[in-house]
Structure formats: C-alpha cells, structure tokens
C-alpha cells in the first residue's frame, strides 16, 4: 500500500508521518500542497504543523490550497484520509469533518502525553484498535478545543462519529472529543500524534495501531 503525506507551507510533522508509514510497512510518498492531482496513493495523511503560520484561523488557509481539491475527490470516492493535529484543523475548516478547533480552554500550548479512549473501530484508521481501548499519545497544540453545537454532538454520538475521547479533558473540548470521523467513517481527524509514538526509541509503539489499521481495513477486516 502507498500512503501520501501532504506538505503545506508550515507543515512540520510531514517527515514523522512519512517515517511512521514506512515503519508500519507501507510505501510513503510526499504530496505537494500546490498540486491538485492526488493520484497513485491508497490513503492520505494531512500532517501536523502550523500551515500558513495559522493566519486567520489554524487550518483556514490550507483548506483552500489546490491539493485540497484532490483530497476532496479522494475522500468522496471513499479513500482513507487522516488529519493529525493541524491536519484535523484543516479537515474541519475544509468542511470534510464536522465542528471546529479553537484556543485551548486555559490558553496554554499543551505539549505532553495524554490518555485517550478508542470509541469506534469502524474507521480505516482504528480497525486494529478495540472500542474502549486506552492509548497514551503525545499532544502538541494551542488550538485543540473541539467545538460543536450540543445538538450536533448528540448527532455525532448517535451516528458513531466520535473516534477518540480524552480521559482527562485538558483542553475543554465538547464531549472530551479528541478525534472524529465523517458520516461514512473514511475521513478521520485527531489532535494527538500517533506518528510520534511508533518505535521504542520514541517512547513506545502506542501510535502504530492507527497506521496498521489501514492494512486491516484494506483487507476487509471489520470489527464491531
């Protein structure tokens, strides 16, 4: 399988995502923000960073980049797309995921490990995980407070679109949401960084399951 990682001006986790994909056993290729044709990849990652220096709102300008036309077409065909941190912000700004991400409740930039609970294994990025499973992954963000109107949060819960929740809701996210997916489940966004926890030298392999999931999903393995 071939995984594409989009590089925006200001992305800074693109190499980590490429390396994590390779460690998980995939071929990994960079995709350029100015190129709208997204071809020859089986999955796409929008990595973390500070695209366009977070001008206007985090992810707002990247959402208008030429590559996003290709990402949109890829997602509409059911292709697996994962936004990590800034990538999650970009997917929300592009309207590919519901809700929005804004300033953490305490205004602090949080850069530490957090405990998450896996809520659904139905997405191609969580197939190797079990609902209720606890993961400890690093976060590094100032604008990770997930906001949705209460009635929409209820709808997301009813439609199994909550993917991860924080055990301790340190940033004040609605519903303690750390990750969500679109209705179909193929587009996932998450604030924590699985690509930073994929080998012993990085503190463990807790993030590897997210990447390994793709292969199970491609093989048609389903879990409740």
């Amino acid at each position, binding site marked *: 399988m071939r995984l594409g990682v989009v590089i925006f001006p200001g992305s800074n986790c693109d190499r980590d995502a490429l390396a994590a994909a390779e460690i998980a056993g995939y071929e990994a290729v960079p995709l350029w923000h100015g190129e709208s044709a997204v071809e020859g990849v089986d999955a796409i990652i929008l990595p973390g960073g500070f695209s366009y220096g977070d001008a206007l709102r985090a992810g707002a300008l990247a959402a208008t980049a030429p590559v996003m036309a290709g990402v949109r077409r890829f997602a509409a065909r059911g292709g697996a797309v994962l936004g990590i941190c800034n990538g999650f912000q970009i997917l929300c*700004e592009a309207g590919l995921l519901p809700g929005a991400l*804004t*300033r953490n409740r305490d205004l602090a930039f949080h850069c530490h490990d957090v405990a998450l609970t896996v809520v659904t294994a139905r997405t191609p990025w969580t197939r190797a995980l079990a609902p209720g499973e606890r993961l400890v992954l690093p976060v590094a963000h100032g604008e990770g407070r997930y906001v949705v109107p209460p009635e929409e949060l209820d709808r997301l819960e009813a439609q199994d679109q909550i993917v991860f929740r924080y055990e301790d809701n340190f940033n004040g996210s609605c519903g303690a949401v750390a990750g969500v997916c679109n209705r179909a489940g193929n587009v996932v966004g998450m604030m924590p960084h699985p690509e930073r926890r994929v080998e012993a030298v990085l503190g463990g392999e807790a993030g590897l399951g997210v990447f390994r999931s793709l292969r199970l999903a491609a093989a048609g393995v389903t879990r409740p």
Partner: protein
Amino acid sequence: MRWRAVVAVELKPGVLDPQGEAVREALRRMGHDHVSDVRVGKRIQLLLEAAEEGEARARVRDICESLLVNPVLERYAFDIEPEGER
C-alpha cells in the same frame, strides 16, 4: 469602482473565549473590577472593486462566508463605503 469594507468578526454567544477571560482577569488586576465580561474579536479591512454597492456587499458576504468567518465558532457584520470618501 473601489470600495472599502470593514468586517467585524466575533465569537458567537455561548462559545467560550479564554482570551477575553484572560484580558478580563488582567483588567481586574489593574483595578478595573467594574468590567464583568470581555470578548476578543477581529477587524478585517478589504479594498475591492465592484460596479455598485449591492455587488460590493454580495462579494464581501461571499468572502466572509467562504473564508473569513468559521460559522461553527463565529458571526460577522460589515460596513462598506466608497473608497476615498473620507
């Protein structure tokens, strides 16, 4: 003709504004304990070409809704005037 639009973007009521809260706390420390609430917004100025005011307003609305404002978090209002009139 050229128009100057000034767009005010603010967080919707009910959306927590930790920045406003931090400013309020600083004001309290400075002795302004009569200030009970602070909300921080943005002011965005645009110069644009349009044949008449209706067209200019429609263009600014489109720009606000497609990029300047995130409707999940924010709402907006704008004033528009022919450039060079002041």
